[in-house]
């Protein structure tokens, strides 16, 4: 069987783990991990589990011979949309493909992916796959209706010809399209020193192959693991290492784990979780060098605090790079920031003109969110990929008046150290936080984030059931600090600085050419 759990919807009720304990496992009170491809012997229990989920977060594969449904014709589909090409065969690409078929698109559909595997879930890769419970090779995403798509897997796109409306593949093929969806996502930011990155024992965690390799290494019980970067992935990897009983050092340039995403005020709580779990956590520290032996095996790390660590494994969890190189010269506004688009997922060209045939979704998209001062933002979140893919698919086959804006509030989760961390809204878009419910000492709480007198985000530690309530406050532009009488009020509700560090800006270098309005054009010289 194949299944995937929408862990944004999941509120940690644990009903699935009661019903199918061999397939679903709770981590702490609210965290959930699962086997995405359980054996057929688990079928009855999986069906019980899926039916028992109070929020129906478990997505099962559709029965091949299910009742035939007449697909409704797309409402007033634009003429001439017969060929749709989706570049990127992961979560966003796959969801968009299903949405297109669901909405009645009957033309040809081509799925282009650089990895040779059918679409798989990346979520387990930094958790149950590293721990060894679920093989990283067995996280394939559930299939829906027959997609009737032309799959080009293991065949990266290398270029885009907008004039001829063709995607260029590595093998020289030119795939024509009427509508294109760019869903190429991100890749792990590699360790910056190439020679050091090439040492045996240095890993990143993004793709299935990464997880397979790292799991093998962790299973061999290395002497000491170094995790570079205490963002979500780094913290999850450190958490798994501790569960496996491996000694692990985490270094981060910032003041605390997760500080980049949630601010240092909450990050310090995460730091306690690291230390309580036995992690050697070193903040405001960086790695000067990774050193190998004569055989190219990683042996040591030299840190900025002057110390040297003997390590066998180093995991570079330095964030991501957006997969935009293939768009160089395409004339789209694509660079390190991603591919800029409007809230209807239509890509901008280098002039800032919106295109009508090229759409963007998922981690690679950079779109304006009205709730956050219309700032362009890229969200590397599972939920954003799902939601945006649906919007993009709809808009690709709809006429202008029927198009939808992508306005969902961002949601995010991470499972680490037996604690489920969730957020709604954009925590980095805040000056202050206030704990509104629960206790930070117990690591069970809700923190509201605010800026300019209104609530902009909320973060929960093992308090996911309350998140939607705060989402509604954000949607209503409710005041910050929220004035509420609630259950489980902390002794004081005094806002404190969120300690968000501004992300370094990504610069674009653009030259302007021409004089007449008809000739005036922008040329992207350097995309950050």
């Amino acid at each position, binding site marked *: 069987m194949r299944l995937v759990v929408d862990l944004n919807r999941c509120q940690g009720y*644990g009903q699935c783990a009661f*019903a199918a304990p061999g397939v679903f496992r709770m981590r702490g009170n609210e965290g959930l991990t699962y086997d995405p491809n359980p054996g057929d012997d688990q079928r009855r*229990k999986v*069906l019980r589990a899926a039916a028992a989920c109070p929020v129906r977060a478990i997505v099962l594969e559709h029965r091949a011979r*299910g009742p035939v449904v007449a697909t409704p014709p797309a409402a007033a589909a634009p003429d001439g949309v017969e060929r749709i090409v989706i570049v990127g065969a992961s979560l966003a690409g796959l969801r968009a493909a299903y949405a297109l078929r669901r909405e009645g698109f009957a033309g040809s559909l081509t799925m282009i992916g650089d990895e040779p595997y059918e679409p798989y879930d990346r979520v387990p890769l930094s958790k149950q796959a590293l721990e060894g419970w679920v093989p990283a090779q067995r996280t394939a995403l559930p299939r829906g209706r027959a997609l009737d798509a032309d799959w080009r897997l293991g065949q990266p796109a290398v270029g885009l010809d907008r004039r001829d409306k063709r995607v260029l593949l590595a093998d020289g093929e030119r795939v024509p399209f009427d509508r294109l969806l760019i869903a190429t996502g991100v890749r792990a930011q590699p360790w910056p020193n190439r020679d050091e990155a090439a040492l045996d024992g240095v890993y990143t965690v993004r793709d299935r192959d990464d997880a397979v390799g790292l799991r093998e290494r962790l299973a061999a019980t290395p002497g000491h693991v170094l995790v570079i970067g205490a963002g979500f992935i780094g913290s999850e990897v450190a958490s798994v290492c501790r569960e496996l009983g491996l000694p692990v050092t985490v270094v981060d340039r910032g003041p605390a784990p997760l500080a980049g995403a949630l601010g240092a005020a909450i990050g310090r709580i995460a730091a306690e979780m690291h230390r309580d779990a036995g992690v050697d956590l070193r903040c405001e520290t960086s790695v000067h060098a990774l050193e190998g032996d004569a055989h190219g095996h990683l042996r040591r790390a030299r840190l900025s605090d002057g110390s040297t660590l003997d390590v066998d494994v180093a995991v570079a969890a330095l964030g991501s790079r957006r997969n935009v190189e293939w768009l160089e010269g395409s004339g789209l506004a694509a660079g390190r920031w991603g591919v800029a688009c409007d809230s209807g997922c239509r890509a901008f060209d280098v002039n800032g003109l919106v295109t009508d045939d090229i759409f963007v979704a998922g981690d690679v998209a950079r779109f304006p969110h009205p709730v956050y001062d219309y700032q362009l933002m890229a969200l590397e979140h599972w939920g954003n990929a799902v939601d945006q893919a649906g919007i993009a698919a709809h808009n690709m086959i709809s006429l202008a008046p029927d198009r939808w804006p992508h306005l969902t509030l961002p949601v995010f989760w991470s499972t680490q150290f037996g604690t489920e961390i969730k957020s709604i809204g954009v925590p980095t878009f805040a000056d202050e936080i206030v704990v509104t419910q629960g206790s930070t000492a117990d690591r069970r709480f809700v923190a509201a984030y605010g800026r300019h007198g209104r609530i902009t985000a909320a973060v929960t530690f093992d308090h996911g059931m309350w998140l*939607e309530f705060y989402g509604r406050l954000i949607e209503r532009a409710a005041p910050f600090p929220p004035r509420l009488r609630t259950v489980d009020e902390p002794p004081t509700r005094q806002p404190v600085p969120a300690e968000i560090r501004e992300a370094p800006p990504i610069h674009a270098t653009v030259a302007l050419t021409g004089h007449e309005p008809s000739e005036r054009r922008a040329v992207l010289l350097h995309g950050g």
Partner: protein
Amino acid sequence: MAAASVFERVLDYANRADPYPLYRELREKPVWREADGSYVVSRYRDIVALLHDPRLSSRNVGLGGFIHQDPPEHDRIRRILDRHYGPPETPDRIDRMEPDLLEIVTGLIDGFTGRTEIDLVDDFSYPLPVTAICRLLGVPLEDEPRFHAWADAVIDGLGPPAHTPEQARRKATDALAEMGEYFAILIDAHRAVVGEDLLSAIVADASTREGMSRAELTANAALLLIAGHETTVNLITNGMLTLLRHPDMLDRVRREPEFVIRTVEELLRYEPPVHFLLRVALDDVDIAGTTIPADATIHLAVASGSRDPHHVPDPDRFDPDRHDLERIDVDARESQHLGFGGGVHHCFGAPLARLETQLALTELALRLENPRLLADPPPYRPNPVLRGPRHLRIGFDRVRPAEEIGIPRSREAADEAARQLG
């Protein structure tokens, strides 16, 4: 005297057999203010929002135990009880009970042999969950007459406060006190002789034993025993009643082994064992333009919410297939229901109740030949909140012996038996 409100008509025993048309009336307005100053909310989205609204409290609206506490006390007690009951620490306790539960079900149905008529409530729906909860908790089944009386008294005292006589409330309090004494003795017995049961596990483990006071432990043990008594009986009885009113569905339960999973979900939506939840507002709460003031009591009409046509299409149709999550045309969100509540107070016993009812309905369907209702509608118990038939007389031609469908057996053998029938 003013005409009775819709909610008062719901409480009226005359409407117990079919309150659903009244729920439809309730949903015409998002919020009703009752003469006693309480409020009624009946639409799905509003109820879901309120179940997750931290401005609502569950305190002081009932008779003790963690269902009537708020976080953090509620969360603390529930986590302690969970430790030996479910995930993360003991994920498979309920799963491991399946053979045991099947044995209880089989034994009860074996007891019908030679008869052609039963009262499903007294002969099956009541003894099944009672036996199950006794085994789970480690309560001697022979004490059943005593706690049966206590449970009745507590339930009678649990109605909406303004509609429950003072005398009933006092009797409930007395019954709880007696149950507390009973459990205090029982817990000492379990400390002396440690069994496989939940209470033994809790008192044998210093971390759980010391995580709550003795009073908390006895109060919550009493709560679990009562809850295990008074709700699943309705789910099973409502289930058989509904299936006998929809013989084609009963036939599918008999022939399609997986169908019962969806059937139980649909029963939880369509004929749930609990119809109302009670909360108190800690702050002013706006619902669809109406402000419910702080300190007001709120009745959440969960049974109405699960039939809200703005949430689920064709809500008055009994259709288990709407929970077939492998079907491409099923919108999983429409399959959600309020049968076990939601939010932090989501039913503690849900995993056990689901499994018991799945097994019960399957075995009844497989073993009763030509079952039929002898009275429809059946007589109902008085309680409008924990609503269910007092009796359900069922006639049948004969009871198929267990061996005929392969009992004792594994679930796989049961599937095979079902396939042969089909």
